[in-house]
C-alpha cells in the first residue's frame, strides 16, 4: 500500500475550490481516503449570491449550498479550523486538538473579509459580506429598514451591496477614496460610466474621500466621520475593504505564506521558505499566489469564482501526476458582477493598462464592449451588457493580440481610443492594500 493509499489526501478549506478539487481527485480515479477539513460548519456554499440576490432578499442564505458534481466518498471534518501544519511529521493540527495525518494536502483556505480597521470597530451595526453568517446578520439588520446605509469601499462587493440596498428602497451612501467606483479594477474612465449609473439609481456616491472613524450611541453606530470633517448620520455600515488570505494557520509551517497568499510554483505546489516546492502540498483558489505563464510568470492571486474552480481542478490533476508530469497552471482571470441592472464581465487583467477602446456599442448607451491595451497588446476585455461579444475578445486577450484587436468579419465602428485612467504599475504587485479593491472581496 502506498503512502497516499494509507494516509490519504486531505483538503483544507471546504468551500468552492476545496469542493471542486476533491471532486477532480475522484474524477481522475483517486480512490484512497479523502478528508475535507473546514472551518465553517456548513457544506460548501456559493459566495457570489451573498452580495447580490441574498442581500436583496430574493434568496435565503442557505439556498446557496453548492451542488456536489461527483461522488466524493469523503470524510467531512467541518466546524473546526486547521491551526497548524507540521510538514516533517506530515500532520495537520485542528483547533480541538485532534491531529490528522496526510500523504498529500490541498490547501484551499481562501480569504476572509477585512474588518473595519479604524475607530468605532466595536460598535454594533457594522457588517462585512463574506460568509453565510455575515449575510444572515446583514439581512436581518436591513429588514429593520435603517435610515441610511453607509458602504465603505467602491470595489465589486461595495457596488453590488449599494445596488441591493437601492433595490430595497434604502438610502445609501458609498464612500471611496478614488474618483470613481471600481477605479483600481476598471480605471476611472469606465468607472465614470458606472458612477453615472449608480447615481441614476439614487446612490449618494462620495468619491475622493475616506471614512476616518465611526461613532455611536449606546454601542450602536450612528455617525460616520469623513476625512474632510463632514459627519454623516447612519445606522448601518457595510465595510467592503477587500479580504486577507487565510494563511495565518501556516505561520510555523515553513512555507512562503503571508496575508497576500501562499506562494506556489507554476504547478500549484506550495513553496517553502527555502524556496523549494513541497512535492506533497498544493494550493488553489483565493489563497494561492502562483506564477501565471500567461503573464510572463508574474506571481499573481486571482480572487474570482472561475479561478477557484479551474485552479482546484488543475492542482488536483497535478497531485495525482508524477513529479515529471507536473503541468503549469495557465489562467486568464475572469469575473462577472451584476449591479444596477447591469451585467459586468471582465476577461484578462487591466493592471498597468495604458489604453482603452470601445469596440462594440457606446459608453453613452451603457451597453458596450471595451478592450484594454498595455504596451501595444490587448490585455483585457470588458463587457457591460454585451456578454455575447466577450468570448471572441477574450480569445484575443489570451492570444496576446495587438491593440486594438481586429476581429475578422465584424462590423466594428470607428474605434474611439481613450485613456483608461488606471494607476501605473504597482511597485510590489499583489501585496497589501493596492491589490485589494481589484479582487472580488
Amino acid at each position, binding site marked *: 500500500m502506498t503512502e497516499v493509499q494509507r494516509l490519504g489526501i486531505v483538503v483544507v478549506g471546504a468551500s468552492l475550490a476545496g469542493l471542486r478539487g476533491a471532486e477532480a481527485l475522484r474524477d481522475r480515479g483517486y480512490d484512497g481516503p479523502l478528508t475535507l477539513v473546514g472551518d465553517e460548519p456548513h457544506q460548501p456554499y456559493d459566495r457570489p449570491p451573498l452580495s447580490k440576490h441574498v442581500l436583496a432578499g430574493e434568496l435565503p442564505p442557505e*439556498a446557496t449550498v*453548492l451542488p*456536489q458534481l461527483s461522488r466524493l466518498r469523503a470524510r467531512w471534518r467541518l466546524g473546526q479550523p486547521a491551526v497548524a501544519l507540521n510538514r516533517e511529521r506530515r500532520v495537520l493540527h485542528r483547533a480541538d486538538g485532534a491531529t490528522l495525518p496526510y500523504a498529500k494536502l490541498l490547501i484551499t483556505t481562501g480569504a476572509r473579509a477585512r474588518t473595519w480597521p479604524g475607530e468605532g470597530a466595536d460598535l454594533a451595526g457594522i457588517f462585512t459580506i463574506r460568509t453565510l453568517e455575515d449575510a444572515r446578520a446583514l439581512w436581518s439588520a436591513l429588514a429593520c429598514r435603517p435610515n441610511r446605509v453607509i458602504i465603505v469601499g467602491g470595489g465589486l462587493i461595495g457596488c453590488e451591496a449599494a445596488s441591493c440596498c437601492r433595490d430595497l428602497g434604502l438610502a445609501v451612501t458609498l464612500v471611496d477614496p478614488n474618483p470613481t467606483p471600481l477605479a483600481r479594477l476598471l480605471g476611472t474612465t469606465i468607472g465614470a460610466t458606472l458612477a453615472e449609473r449608480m447615481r441614476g439609481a439614487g446612490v449618494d456616491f462620495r468619491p475622493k474621500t475616506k471614512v476616518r472613524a465611526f461613532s455611536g450611541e449606546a454601542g450602536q453606530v450612528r455617525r460616520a466621520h469623513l476625512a474632510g470633517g463632514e459627519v454623516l448620520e447612519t445606522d448601518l455600515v457595510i465595510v467592503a475593504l477587500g479580504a486577507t488570505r487565510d494563511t495565518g494557520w501556516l505561520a510555523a509551517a515553513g512555507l512562503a505564506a503571508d496575508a497576500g497568499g501562499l506562494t506556489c510554483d507554476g504547478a500549484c505546489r506550495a513553496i517553502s521558505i527555502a524556496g523549494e516546492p513541497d512535492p506533497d502540498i498544493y494550493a488553489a483558489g483565493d489563497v494561492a499566489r502562483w506564477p501565471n505563464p500567461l503573464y510572463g510568470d508574474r506571481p499573481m492571486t486571482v480572487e474570482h*469564482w472561475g479561478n477557484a474552480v479551474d485552479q482546484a481542478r488543475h492542482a488536483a490533476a497535478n497531485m495525482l501526476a508524477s513529479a515529471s508530469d507536473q503541468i503549469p497552471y495557465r489562467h486568464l482571470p475572469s469575473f462577472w458582477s451584476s449591479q444596477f441592472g*447591469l451585467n459586468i464581465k471582465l476577461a484578462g487583467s487591466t493592471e498597468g493598462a495604458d489604453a482603452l477602446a470601445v469596440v462594440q456599442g457606446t459608453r453613452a448607451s451603457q451597453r458596450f464592449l471595451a478592450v484594454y491595451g498595455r504596451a501595444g497588446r490587448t490585455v483585457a476585455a470588458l463587457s457591460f451588457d454585451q456578454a455575447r461579444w466577450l*468570448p471572441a475578445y477574450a480569445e484575443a486577450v489570451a492570444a496576446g493580440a495587438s491593440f486594438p484587436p481586429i476581429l475578422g468579419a465584424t462590423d466594428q465602428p470607428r474605434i474611439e481610443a481613450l485613456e483608461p485612467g488606471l494607476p501605473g504599475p504597482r511597485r510590489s504587485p499583489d501585496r497589501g492594500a493596492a491589490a485589494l479593491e481589484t479582487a472580488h472581496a
Partner: protein
Amino acid sequence: MRVVVDLNRCQGYAQCCYAAPDHFELRGHEILFYDPAPSEAKRSQIERAQQACPVRAIEIEPAGLAEGDEP
C-alpha cells in the same frame, strides 16, 4: 436539489428560462437570476434547462450523490 450556473460562461441566451421558467429568469438585458435549490420534483425540468443551454453553463447535483460520504 442543488444547481449552480457558471456565470462566466453564461451569455444570457435565455434558453434555460424557456425550459424552466419558474427557476431561471433573465433580468435587465442579460443578468441571469436562478433558483439554486429547486425541489427534487422539478429535476426533469431543470435537466431540460441544462440540456438547452448552448454554452453548458448549468451544473446540477446528481440525485442521491452525497449519500456515499463517510461519517
